[in-house]
């Protein structure tokens, strides 16, 4: 059952002029959250902005004894609510409902976990990398952004023993170009290798490319999709994704309850 916490802002670290990490006191949500799940956050009082906004659980925060105390969000400013979350101050409260949605399915060795992140699509992967690490799964993060300064938390992934494959659009760090390119090469190179589960989160085009590439190499792929959501609970049917079924048909599933993590090969990409 989701919890609605009037979560206090514990800390707000600006990572850049667009990105910040917002730490929220929400022990019950933190204790229940699985990698890939999200929360619905209301950033302001009053009716403008009106609706909550969906955010992946970025980190599960813990006290010295390892007890979950809260969660953090990786926030990217793109509009009114994300602006407010960027400017949030410690002490302030934001309504935070969760954890919601279907999480990533965490694999076991010998299967490897390959994470593919584009920009703010990094958000679910700290938690996933931890879960993979706990199970002893060898993991790789393919992570692309516009430029070096927008590749965040690399040390955290390194500390978790995650192999990093980085790309930037301007070539300022890692390979120049899109993140799907090295993924594809790696898949091609290791076609006959150990089993791999691919996890992807990022812009729709990147997800489609990742899913298609994975399918081409016969690898399973879980993608976390992003849709505009009003309720996050299956009530409004705003967040649908067309999923193939039967003989060329499709149906619309609600990504808030059937997802946000969905099997990449079943999505009817535009």
């Amino acid at each position, binding site marked *: 059952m989701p919890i609605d916490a009037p979560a206090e802002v514990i800390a707000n670290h600006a990572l850049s002029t667009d990105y910040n990490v917002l730490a929220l006191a929400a022990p019950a949500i933190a204790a229940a959250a699985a990698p890939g799940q999200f929360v619905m956050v209301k950033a302001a009082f009053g009716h403008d902005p009106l609706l909550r906004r969906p955010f992946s659980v970025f980190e599960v925060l813990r006290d010295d004894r390892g007890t979950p105390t809260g969660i953090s969000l990786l926030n990217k400013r793109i509009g009114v609510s994300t602006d407010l979350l960027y400017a949030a101050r410690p002490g302030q409260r934001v309504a935070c409902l969760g954890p919601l949605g279907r999480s990533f399915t965490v694999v076991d060795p010998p299967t490897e976990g390959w994470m593919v992140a584009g920009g703010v699509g990094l958000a679910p992967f700290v938690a996933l990398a931890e879960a993979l690490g706990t199970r002893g799964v060898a993991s790789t993060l393919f992570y692309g952004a516009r430029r070096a300064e927008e590749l965040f938390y690399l040390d955290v992934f390194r500390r978790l023993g995650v192999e990093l494959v980085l790309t930037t659009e301007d070539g300022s760090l890692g390979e120049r170009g899109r993140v799907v390119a090295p993924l594809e090469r790696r898949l091609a190179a290791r076609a006959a290798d150990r089993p791999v589960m691919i996890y992807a989160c990022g812009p729709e085009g990147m997800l489609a490319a990742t899913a298609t590439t994975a399918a081409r190499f016969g690898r399973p792929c879980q993608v976390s999709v992003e849709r505009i959501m009003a309720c996050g609970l299956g009530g409004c049917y*705003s967040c649908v994704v067309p999923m193939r079924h039967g003989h060329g048909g499709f149906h619309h599933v609600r990504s808030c309850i059937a997802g946000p993590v969905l099997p990449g090969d079943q999505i009817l990409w535009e």
Partner: protein
Amino acid sequence: MDLSVRIGSLTLKNPLVAASGCFGYGVEYAEVVDLSSLGGIAVKGLFLAEREGHPAPRIVETPAGMLNAIGLQGIGVHRFIDEKLPELRARKATVIVNICGTTLNEYVELARILSDAEGVDALELNISCPNIKEGGITFGCSLTGTFDVVSAVRKVTRLPVVPKLTPNVTDVASFARAAEEAGADAVALVNTFLAMVIDVETRRPKISNVVGGLSGPAIRPIAVRMVYECRQTVKIPIVGMGGIAEARDALEFIIAGASAVQVGTASFVDPFIWPKLLDGIRDYMRRHQIARIADLVGTIDARARDHEWTSS
């Protein structure tokens, strides 16, 4: 304290009803809300057949409101009866089924099928959805269409019949009267306002269907006025809605003339809203020494505070 509300032969245990399209088929909320604690649940609009609705984006936020054009995605009446109704019954929900057709016969057919199903408590006729091209609102925007569909459904069911009116008309009260004359047990209003948001960067509408329906607090003052107008015109109960987000808002509709109210958009923002609304209403009744919520209905004191003055 008596919170019960009568709609035709049906008694709701309290005036709070989940609005159609905003609460799935009810079962989605079973973890979050005690479904039996609600006055009723108006389930998502059902056609005879399954429908996939419009492609995303289906909603866009607006100042104090939102636009939606879901396109009535739904599982169809048969799967609803087989897959959802049993759970709703098991959870002791009061079930109001919102039905949509493209022709008069579809409404009649739906009414027949649902009248035979165990666990349906009332029919809400959606003749006001702005988001589909055929049927629906074409009935709701014509007085004879409204009259015809209500009387046709009336003939085939003993369930309470509650047509849901569109606010996109000049004189909503005349539609309430047509519904009353056709034998409706109550009228529900308002459905959403036809509206549009354009992304100026791409010059494309922000939702796939071009236009959609505006709901939420933004529309509340218009909806309250419409309920008030209908209250002056018809005798049957009114189910009021549009932007209710607090107990005070629900009370506004009741004082304007609604016997029951529905809450849609606000339950997206706060799915735990129901006990808060109920507590707020109880608290108000206590403070104002109102024993029965029915005694509050339509008690607005609307003497204009003064005539118009012209300069002397």
